[in-house]
């Protein structure tokens, strides 16, 4: 018997619904498997010792699984790169959304997109062969592969994210607001700094959180240019070993389901939770302070 059109349509609708669930299922599986492989390490080392232990000697006897230096390194690299990327990204967004002529924008927007498209391994490679020797000579250091170098390279990876999300936020500022400000005699710059930016602040905050999430999780760049020393940095020119680079560099040598392997998955959990937090804050800010029109301001 032929299915009625109604039944068939419902079946198809359900099939689409199930497919749409695949992202959530994937996210849940990722969490599940990180925990399955990572949690057993806490039979050997306590959570506090793992998170706040100062020594990461996974291969020596006896083992030391303290990832505090790795966490500090990740946070330091992310903070420093944000200090470069936020002003750069937001100012570029202002330029593109408010100042540039249509022609200029048509040239610059693809450039930002192409910058976003550069593979991280290529940026890391550039950092190794060009930026590292330059930093080493300029600042007279033992090595150019350090926190500073990693932060610069990461900054250029998060600028496109920050720029494009901020630009959308600036675009969304209602026209009336700008016109009112200009009509009161404010210059265009005063309008931007005192009306447009405050009005788009929530969108820009979202952009910044997404950019930082990108920076803390980025692997190849820190693996190649951060220097790799698992020590708490004492200057911006210290070589460091952020969490992703530890995972990437050591997984190959860790014996399957040994303590080291478990510890690396546990680092994966910590890293995952960090990025999850950044993303949840970002979507919370975006949701809570949604720009819907002049009336909400």
């Amino acid at each position, binding site marked *: 018997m032929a299915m009625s059109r109604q039944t068939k349509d419902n079946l198809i609708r359900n099939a689409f619904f199930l497919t749409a669930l695949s992202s959530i299922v994937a*996210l849940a599986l*990722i969490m599940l498997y990180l925990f399955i492989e990572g949690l057993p390490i806490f039979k050997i080392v306590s959570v506090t010792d793992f998170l706040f232990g100062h020594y990461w000697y996974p291969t020596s006897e006896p083992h030391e699984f303290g990832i505090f230096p790795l966490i500090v390194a990740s946070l330091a690299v992310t903070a420093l790169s944000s200090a470069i990327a936020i002003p750069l990204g937001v100012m570029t967004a202002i330029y593109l959304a408010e100042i540039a002529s249509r022609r200029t924008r048509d040239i610059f927007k693809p450039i930002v997109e192409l910058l976003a498209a550069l*593979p991280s391994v290529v940026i890391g490679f550039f950092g190794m*062969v060009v930026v590292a020797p330059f930093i080493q000579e300029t600042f007279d250091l033992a090595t150019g592969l350090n926190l500073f170098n990693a932060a610069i390279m990461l900054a250029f990876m998060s600028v496109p994210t920050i720029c494009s999300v901020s630009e959308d936020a600036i675009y969304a500022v209602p026209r009336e607001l700008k016109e009112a400000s200009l009509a009161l005699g404010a210059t265009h710059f005063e309008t931007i700094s005192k009306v447009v930016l405050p009005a788009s602040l929530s969108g820009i905050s979202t952009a910044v959180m997404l950019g930082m999430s990108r920076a803390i999780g980025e692997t190849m760049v820190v693996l190649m240019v951060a220097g790799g020393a698992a020590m708490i940095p004492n200057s911006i020119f210290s070589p460091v070993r952020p969490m992703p680079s530890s995972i*990437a560099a050591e997984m190959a040598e860790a014996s399957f389901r040994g303590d080291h392997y478990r510890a690396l998955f546990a680092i994966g959990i910590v890293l995952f939770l960090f990025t999850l937090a950044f*993303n949840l804050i970002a979507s919370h800010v975006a949701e809570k302070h949604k720009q819907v029109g002049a009336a909400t301001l």
Partner: protein
Amino acid sequence: MNQTALTHAGLARRHRTQKIMWGVFGASSLINMAALVLICGFLLVKGLPAISWSFLTEMPRDSMTAGGILPCILGTIYLSLGTMCVAFPLGVASAVYLNEYARPGRTLRLIRLGINNLAGVPSVVFGLFGLAFFVTFFGLGVSLLSGILTLSILVLPVIIGTAEEALKSVPQTYREASLGLGATKWQTIRLVVLPAAMPGMLTGAILGLSRVAGETAAIMFTASVFFTPYLPTSITDSVMALPYHIYVLATAGTDIDKTRPLQYGTALVLIVLVLGMNLGAILYRAKLQKKR
């Protein structure tokens, strides 16, 4: 605004401030451009001498200090195309549900939250997951298939995002006209909405393809190996890939300086591939927008 702001000198000062800030904003945009030009230009100048027909079509020789990068090129192409075969249908179907069927509510919010957070998961974590789930749990081993499945999940949010954009840009009147003629929802989607959105979706697919081609951390535990003397013949083979090859040559070899030309050449091939696809997608999109 203070009292002097409206005097002649005050106005001049305010306009000078504006001019200076315009310069600063413009300069920051130029810095981005400079970074792109610098990186591409450098690799072009250093990499071009290494490129030759034999570099592109030969196997590596003498423990990878000479010869070509054919297995890496093929590996990257297989990985990217395979990933699209899995991720594109999944992503488009998800986008169709989100944009055509879903009603606002808790379920929709949850799905969106899932997609947004999946987009934020670091690639090395995808690598760990692929290792634990596909390589170990499913016993697929370090293989093309494990890599393809891992990369599919990684690129899914990109595909969904662009596919949704494409669906949103299909005018509502198309749907109404089709439904008004008595077509079912599914007929409308299949025969009216999807064909109209297809060019935009393909742009997204190309962007996803380029993202996958440059991905390193997600394949280093799941698909790619340091060296294999064979070209891949089935999806259960492990492969060499361009991004991983660059990393290996630049960091792990004992002859880092000896293989420099090979590194530059490989990096150049990779960015030509990736930026070429992106540029194609950008130009295609511009053409679509003009037509509209």
